[in-house]
């Protein structure tokens, strides 16, 4: 299957040997949206979360401390850039690397908070992400071993052999776990209870966009 039937007309390519970066309306749209959100994250302050206090009539204001703010903003910006990279890469292995990096950064963004429920959720998501890194990289390795290339431009022109299908299924499993979408989102949802709206949004955004890109890649490889 070619790029045109999936993401629209080819707008341009950046040939780097066997690996060709390509830009279609789809990848351009995803790339620009991620950069816009990354810019907003970089310049935004955090909100003050108002919570009810148990056994009292007053509210509790939960804020993000200065040190925590700097650390989380840095990780969020890196996560935005990594996600943007995953949107335009034309190489299967680069995609898996970006995917693993996003998984690690997602945990890092909430690891500085002090709410136990949020940390528990991050821990559970971390376990799933760690386990799913094996099928993620394993799937890409199997595709490389059976076809001899990781370039999506070349893979899209090759017929899907049983080993390629097996590798793609493994990759799909890895992507589902690493990005924490259904049925794994239950472990991730609690992470969003922490204050720091601009930072937690990139966790959600990176997961959703990586799935869109993953489907494009898998369809390119399989059909």
């Amino acid at each position, binding site marked *: 299957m070619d790029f045109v039937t999936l993401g629209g007309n080819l707008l341009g390519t950046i040939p780097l040997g066997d690996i060709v970066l390509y830009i279609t309306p789809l990848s351009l749209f995803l790339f620009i949206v991620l950069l*816009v959100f990354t810019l907003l994250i970089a310049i935004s302050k955090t909100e003050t979360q108002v919570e009810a206090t148990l056994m009292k009539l007053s509210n509790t204001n939960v804020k993000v401390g200065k040190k925590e703010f700097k650390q989380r903003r840095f990780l969020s910006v890196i996560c935005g850039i990594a996600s943007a990279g995953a949107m335009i890469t034309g190489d299967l292995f680069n995609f898996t690397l970006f995917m693993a990096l996003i998984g690690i950064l997602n945990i890092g963004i909430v690891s500085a908070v002090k709410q136990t429920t949020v940390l528990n959720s991050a821990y559970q998501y971390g376990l799933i992400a760690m386990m799913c890194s094996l099928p993620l990289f394993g799937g890409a390795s199997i595709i490389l071993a059976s076809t001899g290339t990781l370039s999506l431009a070349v893979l899209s022109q090759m017929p899907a052999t049983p080993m390629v299908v097996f590798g793609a299924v493994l990759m799909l499993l890895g992507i589902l776990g690493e990005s924490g979408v259904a049925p794994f989102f239950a472990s991730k*949802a609690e992470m*969003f209870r922490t204050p720091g709206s601009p930072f937690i949004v990139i966790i959600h955004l990176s997961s959703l966009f990586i799935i869109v890109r993953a489907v494009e890649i898998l369809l390119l490889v399989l059909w």
Partner: protein
Amino acid sequence: MADILINVFIAFLAGSLLLGLHRKIMARVQKRPGPPIIQHLLHSLKFFFKETAFPKTVSMPFYIGIVFILAAIWVVGVIVGPVAHGSLLILFGVYAVYKIVEHNSGSSSGSPYGKASCVRAVLSAATELPLFAAIVLVYLKTGSMNIGDIISYQATNGPLIFSIPLAAIMFFLLLLSKSPYSPFGITKDKALVSGFETEHFGFLRGFIMFSESISWYVMLWVFLTIFFGPLSAVGYLIGMIVLTFITGFINSTTPILNPNHSVMTQITMGAVCFIGTVVMILI
């Protein structure tokens, strides 16, 4: 450029009136007179001229930026769909950003209602699975993600609603979940006041209502286009009114589900329809 502006205007106007009709239908089913059909449009315009207040707790400039992103993203939806007949995957990306905005406009306000709505928006990501599965099934059947190619396919092979009806049901689930007062609308449950919209006032709410109108129009347009083939303007109009009537009837007679039931219902129906459609394609 003129084409884009005209289509955005039509999308806003038609979407507003359809949402007004939706409210009217719900009211009539519940034996209430209901507001006039034009009320949603009037509300949207009114909010642009109301005084805007910003709570002290908000995350600036995210709190403001997010509603502009929401409006911009649905204008992109109009360009990719009705104007350019582009890729369905881009429209899925548009929908994904819509989920992000739903998530972030709630959390950026600092309000506990917005925050609860934000966490539910993450859970309600289950709606994306049936949508995604429907898009992939359309691709498997037609061999293309481009709406133009899908229309051409249907012109020669007949509407997809007859060959992959279960995929159409999955897409309809998305329409239902995004319609006002939906049983799956857990992010706007009245227990959360207005959910993620609770702390957005004045022109910010105007932008949200503008985007909601366009999003309703675009989602109906996509559904009709990819399952009912090439339609005339009258065909689209009748189709949109019928779909609005069906969702209005369902929503007025169905209580809102709790988050767990909402998610499990959508995932189960999505899985059943996906497997059923794959079996139908293979047979």
